[in-house]
């Protein structure tokens, strides 16, 4: 199979997909003019720096000169605009506040971007992987997937109920839950729909939109086994129903052995309380399982002898095959990797040295190896992996690359400690088939290809 470029699929364009592509393009247009963005295409680096200085100086002038511009209108999300002196070593910086929370640099512009679903309540936003470094996703950039908006819950009034096939029903306040022995785990969560647009043809343009539904945080909480033991699970119990306290009352059935093995109830994320959009004040963590099982705003656990067959585990998060049969309870997120830089819509600034870097992860264990190809999979080189390598966690890989200025196809391929090797899209489709443009929708973990043109432009392509 040859190279298929994004947008050249040949099929009649789906107006909804076209709209999403347009929305993505809109974000790109702004980034292409932003010298701080990896997508910047406007000027030479030297001119870009000068231009940024000029822009910021004008902004400062605007604030002090009484023009109709407010600081907040200037500052990118999550930052505060400060005057930029010509030389920061020749003047005092802004004072340290007596109390503060902190903000990122006013020069940083990366944001989560929402995939334009029918409503902004049942929707998802995607992490800008292209600008990430290391393995941790900043809490404010952790992808979101919610089915009824972000619930607002007062932790003082929140309770977790545990009932059903238990010796004694229990009600836990957040204070109760924080009294138990705690644990922390740095771990990725990936939505099983990550990449759903990419089954039959390359559709989205940037790594944010092809792979941005995976993020890594340090999560802190209490083992679910500890909490279940307080209620006393009765013999014969096999499944748990876990329910959120949001408008969707999001529910999934979790096998009891998994719950007892390594699930936990998280109240902490990256050193502070978990973010509202991640389930504040309490989220179920199901290590390595698809993101939607990590029930946010967790309010109830019912113990039973059978799965509950909720809407999410029958009509939604099931993988329909060409035979007409659908795979159910496909929980594990299998080994996957992607090159985050260079990636779609970036532009290489002429031949020379580039670091190829990206992320690899596996819901079944620990990433053991990542290989990178610059010739579309003909030859592979082993990438360096950032240590420590943690189970069920993003792994950062890096490989030095001298680009000769010729056309190239960049790919990464990972394997985990179970011996599983990330498949090509061709291998995956050979097994799963393509039931419609979105294939079986979920669990697309194939090798991603980025095409580098002789002019340095990087594009999302299919090549397998």
């Amino acid at each position, binding site marked *: 199979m040859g190279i298929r470029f994004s947008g050249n699929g040949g099929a009649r364009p789906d107006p909804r997909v076209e709209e999403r592509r347009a929305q993505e393009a809109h974000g790109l247009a702004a980034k292409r003019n932003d010298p701080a963005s990896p997508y910047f295409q406007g000027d030479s680096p030297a001119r870009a720096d000068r231009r940024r200085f000029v822009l910021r100086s004008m902004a400062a002038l605007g604030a002090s000169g009484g023009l109709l511009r407010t600081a907040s209108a200037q500052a990118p999300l999550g930052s505060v605009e400060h005057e930029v002196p010509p030389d920061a070593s020749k003047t005092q910086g802004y004072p340290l506040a007596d109390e503060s929370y902190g903000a990122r640099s006013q020069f940083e512009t990366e944001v989560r971007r929402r995939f334009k679903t029918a409503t902004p309540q049942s929707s998802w936003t995607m992490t800008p992987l292209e600008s990430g470094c290391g393995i941790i996703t900043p809490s404010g950039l952790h992808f979101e997937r919610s089915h009824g908006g972000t619930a607002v819950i007062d932790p003082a009034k929140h309770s977790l109920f545990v009932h059903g096939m238990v010796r004694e029903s229990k009600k836990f306040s957040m204070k109760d839950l924080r009294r138990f022995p705690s644990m922390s785990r740095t771990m990725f969560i990936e939505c099983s729909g990550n990449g759903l647009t990419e089954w039959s043809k390359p559709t989205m343009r940037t790594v944010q939109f092809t792979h941005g539904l995976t993020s890594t945080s340090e999560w802190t909480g209490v083992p679910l086994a500890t909490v279940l033991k307080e209620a006393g699970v009765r013999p014969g119990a096999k499944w748990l129903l876990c329910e959120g306290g949001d408008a969707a009352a999001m529910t999934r059935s979790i096998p009891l052995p998994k719950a007892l093995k390594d699930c936990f109830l998280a109240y902490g994320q990256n050193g502070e309380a978990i973010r509202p959009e991640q389930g504040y004040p309490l989220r179920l963590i199901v290590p390595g399982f698809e993101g939607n099982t990590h029930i946010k705003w967790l309010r109830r656990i019912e113990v039973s002898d059978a799965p509950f067959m909720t809407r999410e585990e029958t009509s939604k998060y099931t993988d329909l095959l060409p035979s007409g049969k659908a795979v159910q309870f496909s929980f594990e997120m299998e080994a996957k990797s992607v090159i985050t830089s260079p990636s779609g819509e970036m532009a290489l600034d002429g031949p020379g040295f580039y670091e190829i870097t990206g992320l690899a992860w596996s819901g079944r264990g620990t990433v053991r190896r990542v290989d990178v190809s610059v010739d579309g999979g003909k030859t592979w080189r082993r990438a360096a992996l950032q240590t420590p390598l943690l189970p069920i966690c993003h792994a950062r890989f890096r490989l030095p690359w001298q680009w000769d200025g010729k056309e190239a196809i960049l790919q990464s391929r990972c394997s985990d400690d*179970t011996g599983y090797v990330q498949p090509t899209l061709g291998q995956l489709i050979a097994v799963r088939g393509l039931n419609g443009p979105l294939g079986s929708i979920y669990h697309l973990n194939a090798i991603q290809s980025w095409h580098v043109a002789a002019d340095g432009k990087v594009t999302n392509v299919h090549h397998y």
Partner: protein
Amino acid sequence: MSITTRGSLGFALAALATAASGAGTQGATYGFGTTPSQAELARFFSPQPDGRGLPPGSGSVLEGKSVYQQQCASCHGENLQGGTGDRLIGGRGSLANADPKKPPVKTVESYWPYATTLFDYVKRSMPLTAPDSLTDDQVYALTAYILEQAKIVPEDAIMNAQALPKVVMPNHDGFVPDRRPDRFPPAARAPHEDMAIAPAAK
């Protein structure tokens, strides 16, 4: 002496902690949390396909039609054809499909394996602007109406805790367990075949 004592105490505390954590995972409990009242648990529901967990109450197709038009039609369409909300009926025979350009039509009628799930989801999550606001009778009625429009139950059907689990959905046998990890056919070039840079194939 004091050092020895402190050391011994530290050791004893460590041993105690080990014993406590051992007890925490195997034997004794911590005693945290309280016992919820029946009233507190009564607000929760979670029916299963065999009918366990379904509340009392009932509703007819005709009653359901009325509730549907007031509460559901604006998102799911006058004829259940979908809109902002999912399409609810049709699509039978579309699931077996190997055409990458033609999407399957997944609806309550064509895809959902259990009728109890319909009751559960409508009750907990619908309507969008006021979830969990319908009475059990209204939800049974809506369930009856949607199933009737899907040509699964007759016009005179009454849905309740006894009748709903007996409804056999068209796609009842449409689901198979997860058998991954997949056994993939060989790739064009076997993974990890080359440890070092090899010349590109001509």
